């Protein structure tokens, strides 16, 4: 990924993309829109480019806007008919059918109650309808999706969530070297964490949240300070 990272502001015309668009088809990601024959930014942040033809604005955001295929953490809010209503941090509550769980049948319903946490994939996401989730893949297997029991749940910015989800994320690798833990990160800026003891869980939580607070440049320092968090 080339992170040229020039800052763009809403309304700014981005002629660099228009140039590329002349020779090949381009994909405009979040924060960019087409206005007649021009490409215009609608959010403020660094412009990113991924070869060969994908562009987006990597702005700071805390509010999740659902997109198809995203892996998210949600809290079950209610049972409604043959669906659960799930809060995934978007404008509307998402819905998930009883039958979108592994080995679920009309007789054998999953045992979920309001307040439970699930890790799910967004199946339908459109601005006009409420999002729909699933907890199985196309083969009907659950994989790593489904209910998350025990552990600790907290929220962060979408940017931090994405940073943790990147391949070879140095932060998680550095934390792994010190403590064993289990983690589920949703692109909706929600994290579930489980370690051996409560103290370790809280220390890891603080370390991860410190990445947001301290600025991302200081991962090593934060990881070195993990012992401080453990003692605190």
């Amino acid at each position, binding site marked *: 990924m080339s992170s040229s990272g020039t*800052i763009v502001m809403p309304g700014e015309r981005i002629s660099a993309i228009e140039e590329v668009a002349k020779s090949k088809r381009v994909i405009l990601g979040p924060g960019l829109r087409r206005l007649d024959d021009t490409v215009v930014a609608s959010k403020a942040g660094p412009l990113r480019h991924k070869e060969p033809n994908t562009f987006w604005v990597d702005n700071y955001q805390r509010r999740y806007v659902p997109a198809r295929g995203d892996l998210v953490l949600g809290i079950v809010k209610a049972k409604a008919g043959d669906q659960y209503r799930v809060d995934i941090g978007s404008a*509307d509550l998402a819905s998930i059918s009883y039958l979108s769980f592994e080995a679920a049948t009309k007789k054998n319903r999953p045992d979920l109650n309001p307040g439970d946490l699930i890790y799910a994939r967004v199946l339908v996401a459109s601005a006009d309808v409420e999002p729909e989730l699933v907890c199985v893949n196309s083969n009907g297997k659950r994989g790593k999706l489904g209910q998350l029991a025990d552990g600790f749940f907290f929220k962060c910015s979408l940017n931090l969530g994405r940073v943790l989800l990147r391949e070879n994320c140095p932060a998680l690798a550095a934390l792994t070297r010190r403590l064993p833990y289990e983690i589920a990160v949703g692109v909706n800026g929600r994290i579930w964490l489980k370690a051996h003891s409560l103290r370790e869980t809280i220390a890891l939580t603080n370390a991860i949240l410190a990445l947001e607070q301290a600025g991302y440049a200081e991962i090593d320092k934060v990881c070195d300070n993990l012992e401080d968090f453990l003692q605190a």
Partner: protein
Amino acid sequence: MNLPEKMDVPKDQLRQMNCEFNPLSRCDGSVMYTQGATVVIAAVLGPIEVKTQNLSIDGSYLECNYRPKAGLPQVKERIREATIRDVLELALLAEAHPHAKMSVQVQELEDRGSIDACAVNSACLAMLIGGLPLKFSFAAVHCIINDQGDYVLDPDQSETFHQRASFTFAFDSVDGDLLLVQTKGSFKIAQFNDIECLCRAASAQIFQFYRSQIAKYHGRSEAIAEKVKEQPEAMEA
């Protein structure tokens, strides 16, 4: 408060601007913005769930609240609230999030002049950091004609006691179009035109400020992007 006094700032200059992003933890984006000694906090939430009565299928519903420093909002605050909403409505890319609500809260902390302009600017910064889609950013500038007939840009409250006329203009960042005109007092049309030019020039400075603040905020996250990029290469080596 040891904020710079307007007295030190020339009449054709804006007072010192400052901002801090996300001082509040529970909203989607917030900013504490100061212009001279005037301080406001603005917060945005959105897109969020909307009440059925306000629901619109072709655009988001915009809600704006303005809270005075003390007490409940009165008529004056309601007018200010409507002003901010009118400007925001023009700038917001409403069609991006139908069936949703965008909510903007502005809390006045200290009014030492130009509070209207300050409130509008803080709302813009909050929208920028909250990641709400905008057609353009916008900036408001306040200017008065004092009793000597001089133009004073972005005056401190102490300079406004003997004003002949007061003006607030808001401009968009793309075409420089006027989004808001508020005038009070008596003035000639030539003076109005002069002051519009003066404010337009000053708005460029505010847009520059927005950009530098956003760049500064994102500067901290640049480092990790580089780091992640380097990692795989290091592994191969």
